[in-house]
Structure formats: structure tokens, C-alpha cells
């Protein structure tokens, strides 16, 4: 067991990659074996994530050097700097890992039925496993170059998955937009990494953070990194690709894409807090992120209310919700240099944002899965064509309502718990931000009333007389997310104590992150 925990960070990525490569071979033999392999490897990875989370809460940051003579040996004797590929998992990374594992498992179980009518399923699952492995890599990696590599793995497999239903013209368009955007963003990330490397000859995040001088070139690199990650996570004004890509992808893929966007949010936070951290004065950066967050909230929700395509509407709602996180992070960054303000409300703002990340993945995932369930039965995403579906698809309607209430911040669901943390702390920073936030939340409710009314409510339409409830695996996938939404809503204190607070502390404790790498000589 100890050996398993020691190697768990690489095993999570490695097992998924191995399973991805095995899937085409197994898929030729039997479909059933392939599905068992996919679900089994994802479940195994999820179990390892939880074991690793437990280990980190007791033993602190987990460091793993690939190919070293001892797994924890990041800086061997005779070397001044960390060598080899290093994985570094702290409280923040493992929180993202928990989100990823839950979301990936739910999405894959959902797609067992949802994709069962499609061709090329073996390739679909190969790409899903690659994407999940890439996401875990992004969260666990300890050096910038592997961040780029895993970012590209996630983007390429994500784009291929978006375009996987080649018979529709709009999927090709959405996939193409996604891959253009992500490849430009990733190349700019690589450019920024090159700028940092040119000055310090380092790629490791911890070692770079220690050496950081915050020169002019460092600032340029910071700007490029922030812009690239902001584009990948869909912040206004570089959000337009998000609604195009999310709305056309198969919903199980969209759920994975949400988690991939979350990992870009993680990369943004890692860049700001850990890589630049206290060396730099990040007040201006914080304000840029706040403005972007406010714009995301406002434009996201006003565009959402206009849409008649159900998945596109939820995609705009995603932009709106990520605005809340950006505001929380931005406030945390703006007061990072001021210990008093940080203790008074900065930490709360950051933990609210982190809590909202996990909640966002859960309720947007549930909303998209419910939308996909509707598409699975009636074959259209157009809200104008829908009506009275609540009479026959009771479970889907209830799950959609649950997700909608959580997303609009209605108590006692989890969205409210994280939003109140953000409101409370941001109010002390600037009251106007909170007022905009509450206003946006109210419009979000109006958005979902529109969807619920036009899709589920009303008299049963004759043309949907024969529509049945979706298969059991799809309900199970939605139920997992729904149960987690209710649990997170009812016990927010427990969740914050267990995972959110350690994640916030890990994010703010730059010295511990550096020490785990640079001082790791046994």
C-alpha cells in the first residue's frame, strides 16, 4: 500500500495512458471488455486520487521524480537545480484531481449509453482516456514544460472529441475553432516558458519561483501566460470559442471540457500565486482578472438569456460562472501583498473561488448531462422544438432543476455556499462587485426558468408522446453528480475544512512549494 501511494501520482497518469493505448487492441476483441477496461481504469485512477489526497493531508506535498534512483529525489547530489521530470502534488493539485476524477467517471458512464449509437466508439474512448490523462498531468506536473505538453494533449484529444460526430457540419466547425484557439494559446504558453528559461535556465516551477526576479521579461511572460490561460478557460473578451465548442460537442465530452477549462484556471492560479507569488506586486494583475471576471459574469449571463440552443445557453452560463471564480481569484491577487487584508477577506475570496470551481464542475456537468439526455431522446438542441418533456422524462427534469437551482445560487444547494463566500469577502474589497454578482445570479435564475418552461413545463406535446426516460446508466451518472450537489450544499463546512481550506493554504504557501522541490535531498 505504501509503495502504491509513493508511486500514485505517476500511476494515475500512467495507468490511464496505458489503458488508452490498450483500448484500440481490446476494442477489436470485445466491446464489453473495452468498456470494462475504460471504466475500470478511470475508477482505479479515482481511487488512487483519493488515497493520495489522504496521504497529502497527513504528510504534506508529494514529490515524484521520474526515472530517479529514489522517487522523491528531485535534486540529486551534485546538482544545484532540480533535474528530470518532476511531479509535485499539493493540496490545490489534489483538489483539482478530485474534481477531474469525479467528472471523468460520471461523463464516461454517461457516454456508455449516450454514444452507443455512434460509430468509432473505440477511438472515442481512447481519446477520452488520453484527455483525462492529460488533465491529470496538467494538475500534477511540477515543471512548466510538461504543463505545456499535457495542455496540448488535453487540447488535441478534446478537439478530436468535439469533432467526433463527423456527420454534423457544426461539430467540425466547433472542433476547428477549439483546436485553432488552443494551439495558438499553447504556443504562446511555450513562448512564455522560453522567455522564462532564457533568464533562469530553469523549467521547474518551484525552482523558478525561487529564482524569480520579476524583470521586464518576466512581466512579459506573465502577461502572455495569463492571456493564454484566460483564453483557454473562456474569460471575456476571449470567450467566443467556448460557446461554439461546448454547444456542439457530445455532452459527455463537454463535461470533460469544463473540467479541462478548470485545469486551465488551475494553471492560471499556479502561475500567479506560486510562480510569481510574493516576489511580484500583482495588484494590477488582480485588477485585470477582476475586470475580466465582471465582464464574464455580465456578458455571459446576458448572452445566455438570449440563446435558444439549450447547450449553447448552458455554455454561456459556464462563462458567467467562471466570472465568479475570476473575481474571487482577482480579489485574492489584488490583496496578496497586504497581509492584513489577505487575512481579513483575501483568503476567504480565494477559498470561495476554489469552492466554486468544484461546485461549477458538478452543477454545470449535471446541466449538460441533462441537456444531453434530452438530445438523446428527441434529437434536437433547439429549445423552440421542445415542450412538455417533464411529463415523460421525470428524472431528467428533476436533475436539470437541481443543477439550475445550484447554478443560480439558491439555498441550500452548493452554488449558494460558494457564492456567499465570494459575496461576503468581495463586499469588503469593493461593494459594487458583490452587487453585480447578486444581480447576475438573479438573471441566471431567469435564464433557467426560460429553459425549464420551454423544455419541461407545459402540456405534453403530441409529437413527443413516445419519448421515454433515458437509460439507467445515464440516470446513474446524473444521480452521482446530483447527490454530490446536495451533499456539498448541506455540509459546506465539512467540505471547506477537508479540502478547500488545505487547497487555499497550499496555494498561498509559496515557500512550502519551493522547499518541497529544492530542499528535497534525503
Amino acid at each position, binding site marked *: 500500500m505504501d509503495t502504491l501511494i509513493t508511486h500514485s501520482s505517476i500511476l494515475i497518469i500512467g495507468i490511464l495512458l496505458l489503458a488508452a493505448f490498450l483500448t484500440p487492441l481490446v476494442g477489436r476483441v470485445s466491446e464489453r471488455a473495452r468498456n470494462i477496461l475504460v471504466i475500470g481504469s478511470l475508477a482505479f485512477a479515482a481511487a488512487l486520487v483519493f488515497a493520495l489526497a489522504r496521504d497529502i493531508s497527513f504528510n504534506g506535498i508529494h514529490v515524484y521524480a521520474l526515472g530517479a534512483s529514489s522517487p522523491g529525489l528531485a535534486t540529486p547530489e551534485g546538482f544545484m537545480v532540480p533535474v528530470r521530470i518532476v511531479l509535485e502534488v499539493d493540496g490545490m493539485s489534489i483538489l483539482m484531481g478530485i474534481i477531474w476524477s469525479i467528472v471523468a467517471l460520471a461523463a464516461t458512464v454517461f457516454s456508455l449509453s449516450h454514444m452507443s449509437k455512434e460509430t468509432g466508439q473505440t477511438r472515442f474512448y481512447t481519446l477520452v482516456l488520453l484527455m483525462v490523462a492529460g488533465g491529470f498531468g496538467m494538475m500534477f506536473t511540477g515543471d512548466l*514544460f510538461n504543463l*505545456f*505538453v499535457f495542455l*496540448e494533449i488535453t487540447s*488535441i484529444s478534446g*478537439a*478530436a472529441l468535439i*469533432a467526433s460526430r*463527423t456527420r454534423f*457540419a*457544426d461539430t*467540425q*466547425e*466547433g*472542433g*476547428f475553432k477549439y*483546436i*485553432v484557439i488552443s*494551439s*495558438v494559446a499553447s*504556443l504562446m504558453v*511555450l*513562448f512564455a516558458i*522560453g522567455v522564462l*528559461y*532564457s533568464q533562469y*535556465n530553469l*523549467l521547474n516551477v518551484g525552482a523558478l519561483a525561487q529564482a524569480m526576479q520579476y524583470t521586464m521579461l518576466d512581466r512579459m511572460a506573465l502577461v502572455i501566460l495569463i492571456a493564454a490561460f484566460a483564453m483557454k478557460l473562456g474569460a471575456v473578451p476571449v470567450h467566443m470559442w467556448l*460557446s*461554439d465548442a461546448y*454547444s*456542439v460537442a457530445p455532452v459527455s465530452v463537454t463535461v470533460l471540457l469544463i473540467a479541462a477549462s478548470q485545469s486551465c484556471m488551475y494553471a492560471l492560479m499556479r502561475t500567479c500565486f506560486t510562480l510569481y507569488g510574493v516576489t511580484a506586486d500583482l495588484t494590477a494583475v488582480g485588477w485585470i482578472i477582476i475586470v475580466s471576471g465582471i465582464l464574464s459574469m455580465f456578458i455571459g449571463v446576458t*448572452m445566455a438569456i*438570449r440563446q435558444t440552443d439549450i447547450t*449553447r445557453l448552458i455554455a454561456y452560463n459556464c462563462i458567467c460562472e467562471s466570472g465568479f471564480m475570476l473575481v474571487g481569484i482577482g480579489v485574492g491577487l489584488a490583496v496578496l501583498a497586504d497581509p492584513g487584508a489577505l487575512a481579513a477577506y483575501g483568503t476567504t475570496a480565494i477559498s470561495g473561488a476554489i469552492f466554486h470551481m468544484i461546485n461549477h464542475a458538478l452543477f454545470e456537468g449535471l446541466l449538460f448531462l441533462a441537456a444531453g439526455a434530452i438530445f438523446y431522446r428527441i434529437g434536437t438542441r433547439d429549445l423552440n422544438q421542445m415542450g412538455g418533456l417533464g411529463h415523460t422524462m421525470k428524472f431528467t427534469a428533476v436533475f436539470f432543476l437541481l443543477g439550475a437551482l445550484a447554478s443560480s445560487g439558491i439555498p441550500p444547494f452548493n452554488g449558494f455556499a460558494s457564492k456567499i463566500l465570494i459575496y461576503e469577502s468581495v463586499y469588503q474589497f469593493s461593494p459594487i462587485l458583490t452587487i453585480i454578482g447578486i444581480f447576475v445570479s438573479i438573471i441566471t435564475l431567469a435564464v433557467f426558468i426560460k429553459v425549464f418552461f420551454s423544455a419541461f413545463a407545459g402540456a405534453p406535446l403530441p409529437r413527443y408522446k413516445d419519448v421515454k426516460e433515458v437509460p439507467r446508466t445515464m440516470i446513474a451518472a446524473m444521480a452521482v453528480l446530483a447527490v454530490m450537489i446536495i451533499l456539498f450544499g448541506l455540509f459546506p463546512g465539512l467540505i471547506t475544512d477537508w479540502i478547500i481550506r488545505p487547497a487555499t493554504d497550499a496555494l498561498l504557501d509559496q515557500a512550502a512549494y519551493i522547499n518541497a522541490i529544492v530542499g528535497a535531498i534525503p
Partner: protein
Amino acid sequence: MEHIPLNFPFLAAALLVAISFYIIIFKKNLIKLIMGIAMLASGVNLFLVSLGYRAGGTAPIYTDVPEGPMVLAVPQALTLTSIVINVAVLALMLTMVIQIHRHTGSLDSEESRKMKG
């Protein structure tokens, strides 16, 4: 960076990046757009390779090398990885463009915007 005699490689990389951004933004043909992204990748790769250059250095291979400095091996490894990734990206983009052309019969990015607003 006093080992680098001239800033030519960096200037070339900057020029490549600038030209490729011009292409990506202003050329509406999807194939030209892909060429722009390929050029952007080359620009970034050139930048990375020239970071590791040492004046008079030899290739970082421990086989029959003359005495003297070696150029840095790490940026070359990074560049190779980046090239490999870009091959995959370009192949994926081209297949998608072929599919777009099949569906819409056009390669113009203004034609392929079913989704807007």
C-alpha cells in the same frame, strides 16, 4: 547571454511570430490559417533553439566531439517535443478542414460560421 554574437535568430523568430499572427488574423482562407499556425510554431521553435546556442558550440552528442563548449541540449529536447506535438495538431486541423469543406463546400472562415451570437 553574451555568448550569442548576434540577435539574428531572435529577430527572425520575432518576425516569424509577427507574420504568422498577421496571417492568422487577416487571412480568411482556412488553409492559410493553418499555414499561419505552422509558422507560429516554427517561430516559437526557432526561439527555443536559439536560446540554447553557445558561440562556437558543438552539437550536444557525446560521440567524437572536439574540445570546446556544447550548445544546450534541453532547449533542443523541448523543440523536438514541440515539433512532434505540432505535427499532431496540424494533421488534426487539416482533417477538420477537409470535413468542413465537405459540409459547406467552402474554405472561407466567413462562410463557416453557423454559430454566432
